[in-house]
């Protein structure tokens, strides 16, 4: 068991390409940290650098207080679970799990004992003498886990260990991994491109984009207070909705309606000096069917009419989808484009067109009909389109609540809404590490909290 410290770690390939840029993060002893991001963001490279399978170009890596930059993988005392499991096909399950101990010249009776115990934990006892070719996908995955745990290493590194399992097994194995990690208390670094896995498993989640660390925070904090457009769009399913907005006469005009901005937010936007265009982000659950909003709350947001294109009922929730004209301020941002590509949508502008809203399951709204919806003004996010920075974050952090009020005159500075759903204080987790002060295009995000 050990802490892992990445100190300005950079990976530069011989052709000059930067895979990981200035990555700084402290991983505490026993912590479960997730590296998440779209493919090609450098998360696996980071993991391989921790494992010692790739050289570190710049910066320092310390495991358990020791600088290990120049140590080979075998001297780092780490165990890794690979995406393909990488089981040795010519060895039985028993030999696979005992291989590391055998290389370490552990006495055979100790090896047997440890392998038996790991097999018991992972429910593999009856398969110990079979070869990997004769095991199912889930069993192979467990053997790969077993190979890691028999060694009792300083840290576990997991490279998308669930991506080869089918959906049902994945959820089941996910909870198993979580339970196992708590039981063993071993520092774990887990790489995935699946934000659901990231949010459910991690103590803390590190979001990466193009080799640059965007934000490190607890899942809750990441969800409620994303530091920039990329994190906001990446975390959450269905994703946050983005609409264009412009600032006129102290009001925030969007295709959903006009919001009144607090002075603080206006100052923040103006000090950025990037003009009056912003991107407004709203999570699906911040919408509601007006019929289900109590009159006292109605003033915290604005209402608008929309024609519902698609209605999906999941039993517990209802998702409705509607479109907003692009002429009312399209959304253009490199980060959104990347997110759209990652989600398999070629057309980046599409994310600004269709809006998803989660509303009460008892709603009477019908597909194809006009509906009146309410959007919570307290929990919307305002982003700078150029840098992607979340401008509402600084303000939110200070007064902890109602940042943006609806433009309706009846809006009273309601005190009872102070602890609104979306109004989480921004900086609660002191261990969240500074987001990287970027030389990159996303600009500096660190000061936001």
């Amino acid at each position, binding site marked *: 068991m050990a802490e892992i410290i990445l100190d300005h770690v950079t990976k530069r390939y011989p052709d000059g390409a930067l895979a990981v840029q200035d990555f700084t993060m402290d991983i505490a002893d026993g912590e479960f940290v997730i590296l998440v991001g779209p493919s090609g963001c450098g998360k696996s490279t980071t993991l391989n650098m921790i494992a010692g399978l790739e050289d570190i170009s710049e910066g320092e890596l310390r495991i358990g207080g020791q600088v290990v930059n120049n140590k080979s993988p075998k001297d780092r005392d780490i165990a890794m679970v690979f995406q393909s499991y990488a089981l040795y096909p010519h060895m039985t399950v028993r030999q696979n799990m005992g291989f590391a101990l055998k290389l370490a010249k552990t006495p055979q009776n100790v090896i047997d004992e440890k392998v038996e115990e790991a097999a018991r934990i992972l429910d593999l006892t009856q398969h110990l003498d079979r070869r990997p070719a004769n095991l199912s996908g889930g069993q192979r995955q467990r053997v790969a886990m077993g*190979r890691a745990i028999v060694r009792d290493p300083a840290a576990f590194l997991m490279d998308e260990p669930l991506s080869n399992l089918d959906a049902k097994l994945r959820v089941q194995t996910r909870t198993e991994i979580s339970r196992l990690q708590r039981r063993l208390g071993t520092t774990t670094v887990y790489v995935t491109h699946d934000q659901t896995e990231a949010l459910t498993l991690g103590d803390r989640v590190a979001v990466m984009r193009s080799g640059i660390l965007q934000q490190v925070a607890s899942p809750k904090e990441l969800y409620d207070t994303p530091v920039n457009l990329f994190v906001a769009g990446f975390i959450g399913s269905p994703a946050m909705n983005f609409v264009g907005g412009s600032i006129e006469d102290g009001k925030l005009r969007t295709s959903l309606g006009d919001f009144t901005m607090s002075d603080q937010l206006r100052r923040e936007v103006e000090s950025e000096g990037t003009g009056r265009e912003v991107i407004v982000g709203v999570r699906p659950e911040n919408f509601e069917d007006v019929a289900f909003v109590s009159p006292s709350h109605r003033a915290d947001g604005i209402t608008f009419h929309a024609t519902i294109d698609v209605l999906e009922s999941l039993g517990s929730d209802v998702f409705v989808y509607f479109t907003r004209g692009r002429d009312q301020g399209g959304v253009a941002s490199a980060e959104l484009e990347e997110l759209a590509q990652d989600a398999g949508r070629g057309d980046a502008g599409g994310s600004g067109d269709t809006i998803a809203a989660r509303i009460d399951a008892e709603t009477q709204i019908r597909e194809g009909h006009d509906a009146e919806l309410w959007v919570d003004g307290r929990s919307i996010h305002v982003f700078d389109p150029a840098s992607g920075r979340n401008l509402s974050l600084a303000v939110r952090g200070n007064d902890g609540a109602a940042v943006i009020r609806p433009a309706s005159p009846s809006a009273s500075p309601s005190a009872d809404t102070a602890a609104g759903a979306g109004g989480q204080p921004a900086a609660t987790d002191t261990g969240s590490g500074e987001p990287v002060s970027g030389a990159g295009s996303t600009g500096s995000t660190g000061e936001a909290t």
Partner: protein
Amino acid sequence: MAAVTTTPRQKVGWGTANVVVIALALIPVLWMASLSFKTPAAILDPSFIPAQWTLGNYDQILSTSQFIHPLINSIGIGLIATVVAVVLASMAAYAVARLRFPGKGVLIGMALLIAIFPQIALVTPLFNIERALGLFNTWPGLIIPYIAFGLPLAIYVLSAFFREIPWELEKAAYVDGATPFQAFVRVIAPLAAPGMVTTAILVFLACWNDFLFAISFTSTISSRTAPAAMEYFSGSSQFTVPTGPISAAACVITIPIIVFVLFFQRRIVAGLTSGAVKG
């Protein structure tokens, strides 16, 4: 391209083609076998089935050291050259398949160059070198050139096999605490075993069948191999061609190859890597 389902006409067509090919390949072998069972007087008898069966030819070659000793030489020289070539080639092929190093392209090019170089052109220089070094008419005198000419082929075949082995297995071995050498010997090499067997068969066949070097670099039966020794068979008189004994000897040296291939056929075909990664 032909349709997936075969019509009777196609079946007949393919059947005929197969029969022709097999006949072309097998008739000389069968003819040789037939000759080996004929009496010396019946050698010129044109009938395929011997009128009178005899084992005299086999008796004759197996009772003299003129054939037995070269046969032992063939087996010994072939096995040593094969083992050394496969061990060296597997290390070289691993480097070619997995490592990046300056001059890799040149190395592959050189190997190819050796493989296509006409061996006859090297006989005279090699003959002089071997005489100067005292290797002429010794086992090493044949083993060394066999290794040299076996290596390029072996490196080619083996590097193709190494490329098939998932790289993650090696990474897993490193993380499990293996040194690069341990990873190679305990993980990569066992998985490449089918490839090594295939390569070994190919190299052994080349050594076993070689006539040019065997006849050029030997002078007595102490190191002469079987194919070369057959050249020195004598008939019952000075003017008889020893067709019968030569046919019998040819049959004898064909048998080990057939056994070899039949024995390892399954291993060559079956891939060992199944189950390594998600299949």
